[in-house]
């Protein structure tokens, strides 16, 4: 117990120390966690893990949990909608990368089976790192973001057939001695076992787990539901380990199966608080498992191999991206984002070692390569952002014609997506020129062609804002991804306090955060549209147009007031209620409050029933008194 608590303190402490520092330095949270792992790992400070065993234990559970969530988010419908991108881009990436790296492995003397296995393992990219960095930069919806997602989706799915394929390769390779009971089986039988286990999880998931969750859900005990979700994950992990298969694969499959069920969102929101922490844990474990003695022994070999792998992967990605029609910027982002070897490689390499396809030195070395490449990814992205893109890609500042008078605009619009562009079009139609900031290079190129003054890059950076004329501007419209808005507000408050900021927020929860930051002009994108739709529903039901219109306007005032009121009281509860539950509790309170609301109040018109009654009553009085 004491040692568990000590471990927990070390992990949490390192994270709390390193992640904010890394974020401050603009390195991103992933690198922060990795550095924290390196710091506390057995090869640096040695706070935890006797020779890495404990850590790998932790890491494995991190991977297991994460793959469950990855599986849960893998909607078959989404896959179907993106099938051409997924199969085309993803298939090409995995096949070409595996072939290329496999050939290299064979060239340095590995048998073809081992070469192919290594190639497939190294072809995997890190879903967690790539998607998280894209999301942090607000680039998920750019062309590069969509292509990255497609490739990662394919890789996630490809793991399953690859895991089934590896025993076949092992059967063809010279067999080494092993521990698990499937080791004793001939190759084809092992493949059968893998397929059976996969089938069992899919079958049992449909017939047993979902009905079981239904029973649990009916008890209406939230913690019981969380407990069953965890039981499911841990149980499957244990089962798979007993059979001698990868627990990560099992839980991933369970996630995919449950993604189809009606409990998908409930599972997601229940496990959501665990997710961030587990990802952090996973990255720390990766950092801690970097085998520094091995690297120290042959540093040139490991570093060289890492660079070779990353360059090869990036080259393949860039070629595919070009073929898919990505612009230079988007393509570089795509290549840099997916150039690392991912967490699935740990799973595959462990399985390869277990099957005896390769000996331990090889897999240890490759794991070091994987960890190192993951560590380098944020650095590569940073290099790409700060050095490469400004030179070869879309330029940060708009090009200036030689004789053009430098005209300062009074308005800056940060983020020119669907929301920002509507604001911008209204302004332009009204004769107001605004300076635009956007981080989607394709969009920026297009806008520049159309004669807009556009700055390209991350709008939360104060140097970019300064270049865009934040010192002279009066108003800043913040229409960037809602996750990034608080950072922008922060930058503005710190460096450009004179700027009046008008912020788009997604919902009530975002609005609270902005109110805490002291933003006065907050526009919830869900509010006005919903009220317009609601007013039209009233009209369709026969309510007069002007009455419905006024009801919607009055409701908006009322709702804005309610928001302020709730925000003021919110301080007491936000510490211990998670976001999802706070939202539900608040919805309930709002609905209760609405019961007493009368949108008709003070809107009598002159000849209303009330007026008639009032006059009649007054006349009766006159008659009786007179």
């Amino acid at each position, binding site marked *: 117990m004491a040692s568990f608590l000590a471990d927990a303190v070390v992990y949490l402490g390192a994270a709390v120390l390193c992640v904010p520092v890394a974020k401050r330095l603009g390195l991103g949270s992933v690198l922060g966690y990795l550095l924290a792992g390196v710091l506390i790992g057995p090869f640096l400070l040695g706070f935890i893990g006797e020779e890495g065993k404990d850590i790998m234990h932790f890491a494995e559970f991190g991977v297991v949990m994460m793959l469950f969530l990855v599986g849960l988010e893998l909607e078959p419908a989404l896959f179907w909608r993106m099938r051409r991108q997924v199969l085309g881009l993803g298939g090409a990436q995995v096949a070409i990368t595996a072939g290329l790296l496999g050939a290299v492995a064979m060239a340095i003397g590995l048998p073809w089976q081992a070469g192919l296995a290594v190639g497939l393992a190294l072809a995997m990219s890190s879903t967690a790192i790539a998607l998280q960095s894209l999301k942090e930069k607000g680039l998920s919806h750019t062309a590069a973001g969509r292509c990255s997602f497609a490739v990662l989706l394919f890789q996630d799915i490809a793991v399953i057939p690859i895991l089934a394929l590896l025993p076949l390769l092992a059967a063809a390779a010279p067999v080494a001695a092993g521990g698990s009971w499937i080791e004793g089986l001939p190759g084809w039988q092992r493949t059968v076992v893998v397929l059976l286990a996969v089938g069992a999880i899919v079958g049992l998931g449909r017939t047993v787990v979902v009905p079981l969750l239904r029973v649990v859900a009916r008890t209406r005990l939230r913690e019981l539901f969380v407990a069953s979700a965890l039981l499911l994950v841990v149980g499957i992990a244990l089962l798979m380990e007993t059979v001698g298969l990868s627990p990560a694969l099992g839980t991933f499959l369970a996630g995919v199966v449950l993604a189809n069920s009606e409990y998908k969102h409930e599972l997601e929101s229940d496990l959501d608080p665990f997710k961030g922490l587990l990802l952090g844990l996973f990255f720390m474990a990766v950092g801690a498992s970097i085998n520094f003695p091995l690297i120290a022994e042959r540093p040139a070999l490991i570093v060289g191999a890492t660079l070779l792998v990353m360059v090869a992967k990036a080259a393949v990605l860039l070629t595919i991206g070009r073929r898919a029609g990505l612009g230079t910027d988007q393509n570089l982002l795509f290549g840099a984002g997916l150039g690392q070897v991912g967490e699935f490689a740990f799973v595959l390499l462990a399985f390869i070692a277990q099957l005896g396809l390769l000996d331990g030195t090889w897999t240890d070395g490759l794991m070091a390569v994987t960890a190192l490449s993951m560590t380098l990814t944020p650095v590569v992205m940073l290099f790409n952002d700060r050095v490469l893109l400004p030179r070869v890609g879309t330029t940060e500042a708009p090009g200036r014609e030689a004789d053009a008078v430098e005209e300062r605009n009074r308005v800056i619009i940060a983020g020119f997506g669907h929301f920002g562009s509507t604001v911008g079009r209204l302004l332009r139609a009204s004769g107001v020129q605004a300076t635009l900031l956007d981080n989607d290079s394709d969009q920026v190129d297009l806008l520049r062609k159309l004669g807009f003054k556009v700055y390209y890059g991350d709008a939360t950076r104060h140097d970019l804002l300064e270049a865009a004329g934040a010192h002279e501007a009066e108003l800043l419209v913040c229409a960037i991804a809602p996750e990034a808005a608080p950072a922008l507000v922060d930058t503005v408050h710190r460096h450009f306090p004179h700027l009046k900021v008008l912020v788009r927020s997604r919902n009530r929860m975002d609005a609270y955060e902005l109110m805490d930051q002291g933003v006065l002009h907050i526009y919830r994108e869900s509010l006005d549209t919903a009220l317009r739709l609601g*007013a039209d529903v009233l009209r369709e039901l026969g309510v007069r*147009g*002007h*009455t419905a219109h006024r009801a919607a306007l009055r409701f908006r005032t009322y709702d804005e007031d309610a928001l302020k009121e709730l925000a003021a009281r919110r301080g007491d509860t936000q510490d211990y209620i998670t976001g999802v539950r706070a939202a539900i509790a608040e919805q309930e309170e709002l609905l209760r409050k609405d019961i007493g609301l009368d949108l008709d109040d003070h809107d009598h018109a002159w*000849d*209303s*029933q009330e007026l008639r009654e009032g006059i009649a009553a007054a006349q009766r009085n006159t008659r009786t008194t007179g």
Partner: protein
Amino acid sequence: MPRVLVLFAHPRLERSRTNRALLKALPVSDRITLRDLYELYPDMQVDVNAEQDLLTAHDVVVLHHPFYWYSVPPLLKQYIDLVYAFGWAYGPGGTALRGKVQFHVVTTGGGPEAYTADGFHGHTLSEFLLPLKRTATLCGMRWAPPFAAQGTHRVGDAELERIAHRYGRMLHGWADGTLTLDRMAGTTDQHHLLTTPT
């Protein structure tokens, strides 16, 4: 044959017994067009081109509205401000409305006796409508003495029915040419839509 355009403006028709009854009595005719302004423009964004086209196509413009603070409701004022445009309705080249009749049909809470020099309000309906009369005159329109349904706070159901019926007949009269300005000559304020209830 003349064509009649009824510009009806009431922000809360669902609360107005009198105006609902009047509208119900509106004759169905291809020469009478009703524009329910508050229903058409709930957010007060008047479609100026469409309204100008309609005005051009009609001969008698009936402004049907409750009498709010001795004037028209805000949307009708907005309508006039936007649609009776410079260069179209008045000013150089502004001849689109020339020769048309502008005719107010108003509903008031107080009875006809209140709208006299000695009455509660101290002025006649026509006197209160002076700015609108000037507007019409400036645009070259001919002013018809207003009709009023009055005492709406007190009127009974049978009486209301009678008034509505007369409103309908009157619009018929404009549309088939039997009601003309000449015929109305000599009458000033025509409060006879409604007699004072006993």
